[in-house]
């Protein structure tokens, strides 16, 4: 219980503070922006027709009320928190009156599905292959593989995505170009297989980049690890190489990897913006992209809030899980 009082509870309090500060900053930043979405909208409406000035004033008051932009900054702030805690993120400005939570909710499963799978695959693959290459770094296959990854690593993933799209959707039309699935949502093989087919290329472009990054990290970490006394000693004792790679090299480099995984999973709610836009994937990234283009504050804020909570929670979980991965982690 000592642990609970001196470590776990303060850590959870810290998590709450991070979220509070994040939400406050998210609230303030758009309000300091010179663009006022209501002015924007009214000027668009009045651009091609004349409207009675009194009607415009009434409309403005109406909209300010709707969007939570009336009253002083403090009033707005309090109202903002009240609505937030009730799970109400307000309406979308552009797709009025659809609530933001509904729009985010529609994009969320796509993004979460795509990113959980790709993050886990690239994480596991990167650690495993990277550590193997680090361990067998004098073998030819390892050196070839490493050079290959070093070429892939600095390639921005929008270029990888573009290449995949051109080759496998245009010239060799194996995969569809745009969309998330075909047909109406149902638990049928047709629908599920179409999700896999539509998701394959976006997934590949994320996996390749993520794999390369983790590969290089795992290789660097395992290179220091194989020089350690305990790996050298186990090798001298002819402990099987498989055991050394798994229980000695990888096991001892897990901390930074777990950290990276939790933060990547937390960052998932931002969506994979570029890939989603490029493949017309109906996830959060596409929504965020449209929202930024049309200054749809509520949606931007909704997605930002989600990713703040995601990242804060991710690092909270890592901190609480550290002792599981390294027995040397002890409370001082």
């Amino acid at each position, binding site marked *: 219980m000592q642990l609970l009082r001196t470590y776990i509870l303060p850590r959870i309090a810290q998590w709450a503070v991070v979220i509070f500060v994040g939400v406050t900053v998210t609230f303030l930043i758009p309000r300091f922006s010179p663009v006022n979405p209501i002015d924007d909208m009214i000027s668009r409406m009045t651009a091609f027709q004349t409207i009675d000035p009194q009607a415009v004033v009434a409309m403005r008051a109406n909209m300010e009320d709707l969007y939570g932009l009336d009253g002083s900054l403090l009033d707005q702030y309090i109202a903002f928190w009240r609505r937030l805690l009730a799970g109400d993120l307000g309406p979308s400005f552009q797709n009025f009156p659809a609530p933001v939570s509904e729009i985010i909710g529609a994009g969320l499963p796509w993004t979460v599905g795509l990113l959980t799978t790709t993050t886990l695959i690239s994480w596991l693959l990167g650690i495993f292959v990277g550590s193997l290459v680090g361990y067998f770094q004098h073998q030819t296959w390892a050196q070839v593989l490493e050079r290959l990854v070093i070429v892939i690593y600095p390639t921005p993933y929008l270029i990888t995505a573009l290449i995949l799209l051109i080759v496998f959707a245009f010239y060799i039309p194996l995969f569809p170009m745009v969309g998330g699935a075909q047909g109406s949502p149902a638990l049928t093989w047709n629908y599920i297989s179409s999700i896999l087919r539509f998701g394959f290329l976006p997934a590949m472009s994320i996996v390749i980049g993520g794999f390369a990054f983790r590969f290089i990290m795992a290789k660097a970490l395992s290179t220091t690890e194989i020089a*350690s*006394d*305990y790996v*050298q*000693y*186990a090798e*001298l*004792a*002819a*402990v*099987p190489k498989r*055991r050394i790679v798994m*229980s*000695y090299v990888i*096991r*001892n480099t897990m901390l930074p990897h777990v950290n990276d995984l939790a933060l990547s999973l937390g960052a998932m709610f931002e969506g994979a913006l570029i890939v989603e836009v490029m493949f017309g994937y109906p996830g959060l990234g596409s929504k965020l992209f449209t929202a930024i283009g049309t200054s749809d504050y509520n949606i931007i804020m909704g997605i930002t809030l989600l990713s703040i909570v995601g990242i804060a929670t991710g690092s909270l979980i890592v901190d609480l899980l550290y002792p599981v*991965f*390294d*027995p*040397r982690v002890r409370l001082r």
Partner: protein
Amino acid sequence: MGAIIETNNLRAYYITKAYGVERTVKAVDDITLRIQEGEVYGIAGESGCGKSTLLRVLLNAYQPPLTVVGGEVIYNLDGERLNAADMTEEQNRDLRWRKLSYIPQGSMHVLNPVRRIRDSFHDFISAHRDVTKNESYAMTAEYLRDLGLPEKVMRSYPHQLSGGMRQRVTIALATILWPKLIFADEPTTALDVVVQRGVIQMLKDVQQKEGSTLVLITHDIGVHANLADRIAILYAGKLVEEAETRTILNEPKHPYTRYLIESLPNLDSREELMSIPGRPPALDRPPSGCRFHERCPLAQDICKTIEPELIQIAPRHFTACHVVEEELSHAQAV
């Protein structure tokens, strides 16, 4: 009983090449040893004299830049005569831990920090025996009990143990499969004196239980005096004297050995202790002739040019020194 391991004119050099400049460090130069089955053989010498290099070669576990450029290492294990240079990787792995084993220098860090002690034991046992986890746990528990280690270390992680305990666990880990030939590299260095005593006792127990051969490498003559049957003195990659422990301690012949023994504290005398003048030579350009001549008070002209041979001066007592050789021929002439 015959020699369990022997070397014949063994030369092992570190050969490095950088920007076309070749550098050769003669860490082990022309060493011939016969280590008898069942004995405790001590190898002594100051830092940088080639002790650990010799051990690497004896273990047949060396990688470039360390290269054996001449001579051979031969194992006589269970009636089988094996030349280390001819052994395949497979044979080498087979031999380790079952027949020959190694207690490393700085045992503090040789245990995997994220694995419980019993799992490290399982890794090492299962590498050579077909055992289940529970069988190796049982083997470990029994062995630790035999050696007087508390049972609770089984479930501990290395960082939870004291330095002395970690060293003892490492000795147990190295000898769990009862190897015939055990190499120990500075097993007591970095431990305080009280703990040292326990570790020495444990090494003795392990060695005596199965009559294994123990090759003990340390700069600490006190440890040798406690454990070793015979001692070899190494200086700058050369074997300068070899004799039974008692002989080395009471009648050292080689000037270097004499210095070593005189530098030990003595209970009876209150004199200031002498240290050896000068410093050990760099092994990439060793002195000509006798490698000790620059620091030797007895050095003569011959010592500067001609390398002394290792000669027998008494039964089981060998030394390589021109001065001793001369004295001996005088004594015989008289």
